[in-house]
Structure formats: C-alpha cells, structure tokens
C-alpha cells in the first residue's frame, strides 16, 4: 500500500488547521485538517483519514484516506484506501482502490488519464464511456493509447 503515514512529509497541515486558498509545493504534503481551494504540485499529497479537502488537485501522487470533493489529476498514481470518500472526477495514469472506498465520479485511468489535455475537453463530460462508433474508429483510439503521449 502506497499510503504509508511515515515521516517523509516536509509539510504537514495539522488537524486543527482550516485552510482556504491556493497551495503549491514541490515535494510532499500531509493534510490532516480542512482545505478549500486548489492544490498544484509535482510531488505527493496525502489526505489523511479524518481530513477533508474541497477543490481541485493536480499532483504526481495523490493518496486519499479522508474526504475529497473535487477533481483529482495525477501524472503518477492515485490511491484510495478503504476509508476514502471521493466525489469528483479522477484522471490518473495508475489507480489503486481498496475495498470500502466510496467514489462517485468520472474515472479515466491509464495512459489517457495522465494526459493534461483530457481535462479541458468539455465533450468528455457528456460522452458515454462505452464507445458505439464503428470498430475501425475504435481501433484508431486504441492505437493512440499505445503511443508515447
């Protein structure tokens, strides 16, 4: 399980903290309190059990043990533990979900999920997940998934 609670977090938002605004960081943040706003990072965010976060997050790795309302975008991996509650869309290259996690939202996992362009496409919101186009068109998509970016 990636979501260890070890001490490799240079920044910790404590359980009594109530934070509103925009947060940027390089390495890793362990969030134990309440957060409202956006988070952008090339590092790792851990939303600990009991913590809540509402807003969008972009990071390399996102571990959720607490409650999140908002969209998550990870270039690396997202991990939802059994205590996690996520309401929002999820785009990530890799995903791990443990039994018990609550998740309501759109989910794109794989090479497509990590691509930042995916999010800005409004059509993706209404498009059904199951592709009903002719096989030839779907094949083109599949070939693109195998590609570099």
């Amino acid at each position: 399980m990636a979501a260890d609670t070890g001490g490799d977090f240079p920044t910790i938002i404590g359980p009594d903290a109530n934070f509103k605004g925009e947060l940027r960081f390089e390495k890793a943040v362990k969030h134990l309190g309440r957060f409202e706003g956006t988070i952008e990072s090339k590092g790792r965010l851990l939303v600990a059990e009991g913590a809540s976060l509402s807003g969008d997050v972009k990071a390399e790795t996102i571990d959720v043990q607490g409650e999140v309302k908002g969209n998550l975008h990870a270039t690396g991996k997202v991990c939802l533990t059994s205590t996690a509650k996520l309401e929002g869309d999820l785009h990530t290259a890799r995903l791990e979900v443990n039994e018990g996690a609550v998740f309501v939202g759109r989910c794109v996992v794989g090479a497509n999920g990590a691509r930042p362009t995916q999010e800005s496409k409004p059509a993706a919101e209404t498009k059904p997940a199951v592709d009903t186009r002719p096989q030839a068109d779907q094949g083109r998509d599949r070939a693109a998934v195998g590609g570099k970016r």
Partner: protein
Amino acid sequence: MLKRQASTSDGGRTVHCTHCGRAQEVARRAMSVFCVHCTQRLIIEDYTITSYHATRMFATCGDIVVEKSGFVSAPIRVRQLTVRGRVQGNVEARGCVRIDRTGQFRGDIVAPRLVVADGAQLNGYLRIAPSSAGDRMEERAP
C-alpha cells in the same frame, strides 16, 4: 467460449433478482429459476469467460470472472465481477467489482464495493457506495 459452472458457494441460496432486485430462496442445485416477484427468468450460475463474448445483456445472480484471455462486450448485471481481461459495457453489481492489474474496463460501474489493482485500465463513470446497485435495481420493480 465460456465455461458455465454451478454455484458452489455455501450460503448463496438466497438470490436477488437481476430484474427487480428482490430476494428469493432457490434450490441448492438450481441453475435458473423464475422470479417469484416479477416472473422473469433468472440465471443463477457463475461464469468464467475465457474468450470473446458479446450479448445484448449479460445478467446472472451469480458471479462472473473475465479471465486474461476473455473479452466481454455487454451490459452486465451480476453479484460479483472480477476482470482480468477486457470488459466493455455498463456494470451493475450487488457485491464487489474487482479489476486486476491486467484488467481493462470501459463503461460505467454501479456497485457497493470496488477494488482496483495497480496497473488496471479504467474509463467510465463510477458510483461506488454501500447499497448502490441494490437500490437502483429495486427502483425498476413494477
């Protein structure tokens, strides 16, 4: 194409209708019955899919395992679903949906529990919360 096997689970003799969601007792060896509530025919077998399987609706009161070589293209109503191969279609599960690291899933999932292993590919709308699928199936009851 697909192997059928009689359900072997010990306590699994109460099944929930894949049409109306209501529960009923069935004989231990039964493979299909008619729902006592809505009179629809119910499949209560478990399935292991090892090759391509496309259908208008794939519904069973039992479990479905899609092996690495398997590919299911269908809407699915099931108790538990395990995906090691490919699935394309919307899923309503009464139990747990598991997507192993070799699994590729494209479709929406309504289920009380979901387990996704690192490496799995997933694309769709998810509603994973306790009693999710049960509620939805009961809504369709006449």
